[in-house]
């Protein structure tokens, strides 16, 4: 089973990368850009056919390593 994890910075946490990217895009002439925030994405393949077991497993991974819960949120999806 294949799952994805999307990690985003919590609201109000500074995103220096996103800021620099946004400024560059604006400098390149993209005008109606209101905001841009950067996050991470993981695609994970598990030997596990039970959906909720797989999600649980990935949730563990997020808590253990993938996400920094102090400044980040995460979201798990099944990839079809």
């Amino acid at each position, binding site marked *: 089973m294949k799952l994805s994890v999307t990690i985003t910075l*919590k609201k*109000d946490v*500074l*995103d*220096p990368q996103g*800021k*620099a990217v946004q*400024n560059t895009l604006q400098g390149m002439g993209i005008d109606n850009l209101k905001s841009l925030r950067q996050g991470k994405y993981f695609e994970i393949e598990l030997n596990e056919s039970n959906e909720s077991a797989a999600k649980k497993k990935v949730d563990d991974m997020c808590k253990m390593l993938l996400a920094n819960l*102090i*400044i980040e949120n995460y979201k798990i999806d099944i990839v079809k």
Partner: protein
Amino acid sequence: MKITQEIISKHGLKEEEYQKIRKLLKREPNLLELGIFSAMWNEHCSYKSSKFHLKNLPTKNKYVIQGPGENAGVIDIGDDDAIIFKIESHNHPSFIEPYQGAATGVGGILRDIFTMGARPIALLNSIHFGDPKNNNTKNLLNGVVSGIGGYGNCVGIPTVGGETKFNSTYNENILVNAMAVGHAKKDKIFYSKAKGLGKSVVYVGSKTGRDGIHGASMASAEFDENSEEKKPTVQVGDPFTEKLLMEACLELMKKKSIIAIQDMGAAGLTSSSVEMASKGGLGISLDLEKVPCREENMTPYEMMLSESQERMLIILETGKENEAQKIFEKWDLDFVIIGKTIKEKNLILKYNKTEVGKIPIDALSDQAPIYERDWKKNKISQRKIKIKDLNKIKFKDAFIKIISSSNHSNKNWVTNQFDQMVMGDTLQKSGGDSAVIRIHKKNKAIAITVDSNANYCKAHPTTGGKQIVCESWRNLISVGSKPIAITNCLNFGNPENSEIMGQFAETIIGMKEACEFLNYPVVSGNVSFYNGTNQKNIFPTPVIGGVGVIDNYNNVFDHKLKAEGNIILVVGKTFGHLDQTAFLREIYNKIEGPPPEINLSNEKNNGLAILKLAKEKLICSIHDVSTGGIISSIAEMSLSSMIGVKINKPKKLLNLFEYFFSEDQGRYILEVKPNDIGKVKQILEDENIHHEAVGVAQKKFFEVENEIKLSVEELYNLNNKWYYNY
């Protein structure tokens, strides 16, 4: 909003303090004002528990241009050159989020340096972690090291030295201290004292977000089970913006337009504006709606207390605003006039033309509470451990155990994550006794070292306080530099506990004595209290950052052995003091007993004699003896050069273990050419300095007569594997 008991205590203020605020204001404060008081009266900004003792430290010698009281200390290194340096802690934020905590710690100390007009030329750090077996030590180590590197590497300042230590006392409270050193022209130093009325107060740098609101309070609050809740206040560092801010400030400083400049560190906009006003004896009025904000709907409270990084406050000469603005625009940074200096000595805060706060500057600075807290004297343990009382162990096994332990292993794993060469003037990287940085395009260089010894300080704070000053001095001597002055970061537990306050008071007594005797004053520093969880406080951990000067960079010494056949000489007397040594800790897990004694006159005498030998080029390499004793020092000399040594057993009465593992102070190892040994001995004898030849450099093997024979490669592997296997 009504100020309740709960709000007061949430702001970390005591009832008496609140009553004092009411008296000073002659009314109830509003929430914004209360927040400002809490930030300024906080331990971190007010030094309310430490001031009483700190004032005893010597702060002057003929090289000191600026002692404590400014963003950093300044010393004169001849010609028109000045060196500006300071060390600062970022312990609590780093425990919560190691990468960002350490990174922003580096950012903060860099700003303290370039605020004063110096281009930073070196970074160092002192990082202390819990027991490696402790659950999160590895994670903290990884995060802190990459955070320090991540920030310094990006800004492009070489990280050239420091110390990494493990001790279970830090299991729940790590220490992350960062030191920055900068170079400026003597007549181009900038201070934070405001002058003149109606001058523009300018905000430059990053936008203000909700970062670390109450961070200053957090830095001084003990951790408890609820510290989890304080987490979202973590600040994120942006080293890229820091680099731009640094270049923009240094560019502006070439013009004659800055009256005063101050970084926004702890308690951001609040402390920077109050500090400038207070030093200048005037007031400041701010229009808060002009503050560049990152988030929507930020309140004046949030703006004043935000600890967003990479921001500065500048007071400009009238008419220079446009010129200055152009510079910040070039570097893509915000530049906004947010207020002006005023005659009435108040901090006046307006938001959309409405006054939202008004506090006398004095009330926030001079009138801030100062406590002469109770303190208890520490007893020195009289118990001395004798080697005959200990279980037998093979000499070789003891040596190998120490050399491959977490605390004595090679730190390449750490230092390889730091760019040590950028800026092109690093003459000596980390790994030696001091880092050595050449002054750009000049013949002279400075030596820098960072030192601490929590175990000694815990065993007896006064002796420990003396010891670290001496160790710092010795490290500077060992590269052939003349020690000039120090900065210090005093990491202690809860000052409301009289035992802890005793550790603090006595550490200062010890430091003072050593600094005075060695003419090695304190020019800047930082105090970090409340290191510990609930009632468990860390060992007292003062950290000393020392700076020395070398007139000609061709006369720099290191501890690498230079040639086979050279003689290895121990300078300074070995008494065999084993208590508090690495030997007892690593092999027997014993941590009681007194620390080694300090004899200041021997210390000075030995050091100055070494400098004399160095000057006459009678020695090939130098290394001081510190934790791990003589054998560890000689092993390090061997390891850094891959040249072997043959060490003889001492002829005198001392037991082998006591001789090689004791940590008596004031000792150095010298490598001397056979041809020069006569002259060296003569000079040492003239100065009445004890010395003895212990061995000879040789090919390939590290050897102690009948006890140890290891190829230098084997030794290298033993010394290098810990971090990589951790």
